């Protein structure tokens, strides 16, 4: 019952905040709604028993990405940049014209149909069984997977991050005057 409560509250939080991101006009409020949505996704992970992933979601998105977004929005004008122009549907003009909406709708329909097909296949094929796990916790399991099965991807992503770090340092470095 508790899991159901957790799932329903997380799902409601995720979806309602995601709608809030789209609906509000103030971009700072959008960022805060995004925060709620991401917290909801963390809750969904926790419902699935993926505690490490849930905490990583909070760590990376709430602690990093949302704060970074707020910084970027504020440094580039923040609340003053409110689009007043509207299109036919009453939405801000910057969100697109009728062609982009049409393409978006088409993509959405295709995506929905594909997903329905996938989920139907899954629910039929999935046998109900208890998962036996030889690891004491998900953290140990993720650790084993990262340094055994997926060590190449792990190392490659670390090199990528190092590259990003060096790039940021080079961009931020004061240029020499000559």
């Amino acid at each position, binding site marked *: *019952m*508790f899991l159901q409560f957790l799932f329903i509250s997380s799902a409601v939080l995720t979806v309602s905040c995601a709608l809030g991101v789209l609906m509000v006009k*103030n971009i*700072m*409020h959008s960022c*805060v709604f995004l*925060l709620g949505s991401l917290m909801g996704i963390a809750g969904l992970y926790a419902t699935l028993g993926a*505690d*490490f992933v849930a*905490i*990583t979601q*909070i*760590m990376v998105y*709430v*602690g*990093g990405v*949302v*704060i970074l977004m*707020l*910084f970027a929005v*504020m440094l580039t004008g*923040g*609340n003053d940049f409110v689009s007043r122009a509207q299109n036919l549907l009453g939405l801000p003009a910057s969100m697109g014209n009728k062609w982009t909406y049409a393409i978006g709708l088409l993509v959405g329909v295709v995506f929905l149909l594909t997903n329905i097909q996938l989920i139907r296949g899954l629910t039929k094929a999935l046998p109900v069984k208890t998962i036996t796990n030889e690891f*004491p*916790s*998900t*953290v140990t399991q993720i650790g084993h997977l990262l340094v055994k099965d997926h060590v190449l991807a792990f190392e490659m992503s670390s090199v990528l991050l190092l590259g990003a770090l060096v790039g940021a340092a080079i961009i931020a470095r004061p240029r020499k005057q000559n």
Partner: protein
Amino acid sequence: MNQTVVSYLSQYEFYDFLLALFRSNQGVLAFTLYLLLALIIVGMCATIGGLGTYAERKISADLQARIGPNRVGPYGLLQMLADGVKMMTKEDIMPFTADKKLFYLAPLLCLTGVFATLAVLPFSSGFIMADLNVGIFYLVAISSLVGLGVFLGGYASNSKWSMLGGMRGASQIISYEIPVTISILAIVLLAGGMGFGTIVGRQGGLPHEWFMFHNPFAFIAFFVYSVGALAETNRAPFDLPEAESELVSGYHTEYTGMRFGFFALAEYIEVFVVCGVAASLFLGGYNVPGIKLDILPMQAAQFVIFMTKTLVLYYVVIWIRWTLPRLRVDQLMSVCWKYLTPIAIFNLMGCAIWMVVFNGKSIAELVLGSH
């Protein structure tokens, strides 16, 4: 599996009695117990936060050869109640151009972030709300809500001082999270787990069994953690977000009454949490020296030990505040990125190499012979 306070209590006989009282409804009983204990912990920590303001003034008075608050109650102990009543009855002023919703949200985010960390703080081996497998990681992650609250508080006030304070606060908290997290990671490496139960369980009650004295790198990591934690909680000498001499009061300049009280309370409780984490990661946590029993009175002894260590660290934090001058912004950033972060990474690698070379033995075990 994740241990919780309820699963701990369920091994005693009175749990069966309670279960009979709740007509064998496990879920409702667990929920009630969690609610009750959460209220106890939040109430206790809010009181500690309130007493923190009293301790701050009293200790600063001692350091400056003054008397400090002594009018309300014996030794001025009820000063915090007087302050609380004052804050409750003050007018709730909001700047006309403030972003109203975010203005309301910001202090709540701060308080939520701090109270959420209390869920994993190990007061004793049984009295820990949830001993998650990812305990310390959860604590680091959820406390980033405080940074967000500081930032939004600064932004939503729509005033220059608040804005500058909020931006300083957010950048400072994000920056110092890195050396702090890497120092914690070194301890996770020594303990072999991220749960507080695991980390504290691997240490002993006596100083030579603490992780702080496990190896030289962990010893340095303690100081890196302490400095970083001071900065993360916006305490002097790193209280730039609220630097009175430059920014009036920083991110909470425009807040009045209890909303300001929320920010202040969040800060004092966060200092307590940070001290508690330092005590349990580096100073042996709740381990009682010499005795290893699993009976209920033992929990009280463990609680006293934990609180003693934490409050001693709390005293040191206040002591530092009234001793050292404030840093400049550029000094603050260079301390973090040019000194603390490289030292923390060095410590992490040092700990890893130590674990491999000496097979996970501490200095004391190497010197005294392993047991």
